[in-house]
């Protein structure tokens, strides 16, 4: 098993200077960097096997098909799905959620129904439900977030009141990209089942960071993006329980997902093909499989422990700064993942990011696609540092030093 410092050698992008300083990449919540093993999988595919899948009988096409379906099986194993057919390849979390919102929402939602979500969802797990509810004449309700800094997590008592039989679907994030909160997803699914609500989990921030088992969680749908888990851009997954997928109509239609087409109509293949119209993103699916191999070789339990070590150190150093407001779970809370979001008195997040960049440090500032949450917390933006397997304790020191310099500059 590689050591954490050896791991950095796998990531070519990390070995560069930004503004004359060694790059410190702390924007992992937005996207993760790619190890050579993933980049190599892309190159190997294009240099040896590239071909269209499923419809070919020649050597390259058979190799490409085997590799593509192999990647599906690999991803199924990564999340412990019962069947590879439960893994649908999409562009990313956003498309996965939209697919459920449209296909399931269109067929199942009726006026008077309730869709439930939480007050701290990413726009990608919020706006699609607003649209689906609106289209169906259903109502969208929000489980509240507790605490003036959002430190209290989901209000589980309110959840019990909100979970009426009218609730047809409950969509929630596994890990908040803004607060860092880890939701008790298995427990949420259990409660949703008591009223027969379908569950949709946004696993964008979790799947590459913590061990994840869809059967242990007991969810109906789960969405994630390859690019946040060391995989390429342009590929993601919608996991769906087979029994539910087989009842869903396709969202997009076209080549590859039909059984029979006449000038009058068409019939559909079962999942996963039913939900993969057109030529799929073959190369990136295969590279996503390589990312699963990479993360499993390290161990997601070890990655989670590494993330936690870093975030605890960062919380400690940041708390020592004057005029800082950290949002999300308190220092040392077990429901905090490896990211920290904060606001400085008198210094806007964009200025923080620009000055940190001068020190070679990549942070993110803004609303983090979480506008309603920002408003609820009385903020317009925060600065976020988000950690991953290749980050180090020295990088946290550099972050703290840079933040002190920024505060001093603006205090002027």
């Amino acid at each position, binding site marked *: 098993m590689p050591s954490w410092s050896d791991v950095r050698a796998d990531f070519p992008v990390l070995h560069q200077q930004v503004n004359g300083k060694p790059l410190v990449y702390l924007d992992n919540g937005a996207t993760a960097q790619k190890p050579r093993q993933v980049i190599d999988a892309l190159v190997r595919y294009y240099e040896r096997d590239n071909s269209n899948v*499923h*419809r070919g*009988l020649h*050597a390259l096409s*058979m190799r490409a*098909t085997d590799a593509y379906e192999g990647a599906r099986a690999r991803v199924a194993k990564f999340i412990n799905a019962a*069947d*590879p*057919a439960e893994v649908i390849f999409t562009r990313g979390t956003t498309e996965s959620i939209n697919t459920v919102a449209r296909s399931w929402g269109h067929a199942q939602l009726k006026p008077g129904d309730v869709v439930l979500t939480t007050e701290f969802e990413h726009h990608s797990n919020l706006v699609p439900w607003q649209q689906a509810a609106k289209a169906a004449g259903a109502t969208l309700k929000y489980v509240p977030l507790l605490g003036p800094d959002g430190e209290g997590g989901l209000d589980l008592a309110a959840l019990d009141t909100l979970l009426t039989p009218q609730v047809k679907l409950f969509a929630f994030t596994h890990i908040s990209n803004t607060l860092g909160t880890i939701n008790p997803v298995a427990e949420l699914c259990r409660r949703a089942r008591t009223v027969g609500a379908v569950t949709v989990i946004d696993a964008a921030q979790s799947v590459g960071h913590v061990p994840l088992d869809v059967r242990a969680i007991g969810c109906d749908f789960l969405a994630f993006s390859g690019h946040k888990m060391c995989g390429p851009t342009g590929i993601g997954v919608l996991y769906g329980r087979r029994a539910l997928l087989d009842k869903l109509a396709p969202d997009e239609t076209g080549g590859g997902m*039909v*059984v*029979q087409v006449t000038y009058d109509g068409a*019939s559909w*293949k*079962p999942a*996963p*093909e039913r939900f993969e119209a057109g030529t799929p993103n073959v190369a990136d699916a295969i590279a996503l499989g390589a990312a699963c191999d990479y993360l499993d070789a390290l161990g997601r339990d070890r990655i989670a422990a590494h993330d936690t070590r870093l975030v605890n150190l960062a919380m400690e150093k940041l708390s020592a700064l004057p005029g800082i407001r950290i949002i999300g779970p308190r220092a040392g809370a077990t429901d905090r993942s490896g990211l920290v979001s904060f606001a400085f008195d008198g210094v806007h997040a964009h200025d923080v990011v620009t000055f940190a960049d001068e020190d070679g440090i990549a942070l993110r500032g803004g609303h983090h696609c979480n506008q309603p949450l920002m408003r609820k917390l009385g903020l317009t933006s925060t600065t976020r540092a988000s950690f991953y397997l290749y980050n180090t304790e020295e990088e946290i020191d550099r972050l703290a030093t840079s933040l002190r310099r920024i505060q001093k500059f603006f205090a002027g």
Partner: protein
Amino acid sequence: MQDLTDLYQSVILDHNRRPRNRGKLPTANRVAHGENPSCGDQCTVYLRLDGDRVGEITFDGSGCAISQASASLMTLHVKGKTLPETEAIYADVHKLVTTGQVDESNLSDLAALAGVHQFPARIKCATLGWHAALNALKGDPVTATTETHKD
């Protein structure tokens, strides 16, 4: 790739060129249709059930030499059989085309399908007619598709 003559044995070529029991069966009391959506292969099986045994059986459709020959061979083997007997034969055929191995050597000329296991893309061609026949026997007229992840 393995030698293609493993796949295209003379039995296969013969049944492809001169398919047995090909065409509609006017006296059929069971019909089922199978397709292979990726490649467009089609196979309709017509059969007359006399009691619980297949009295007559024919097939129609289009597809590669493997699918045509396999369907033609199928009609010879299924005629006179019950559903459980047909399922037992198909279990052997399925094992043969996916692994190249057979438990018993009672498959006679069906053994010509052994080469298929070296060409995984062709397994669904070799099983198409059989799926349709089983569906017909079960009285399940819906389209059988070989295009599932379970095949």
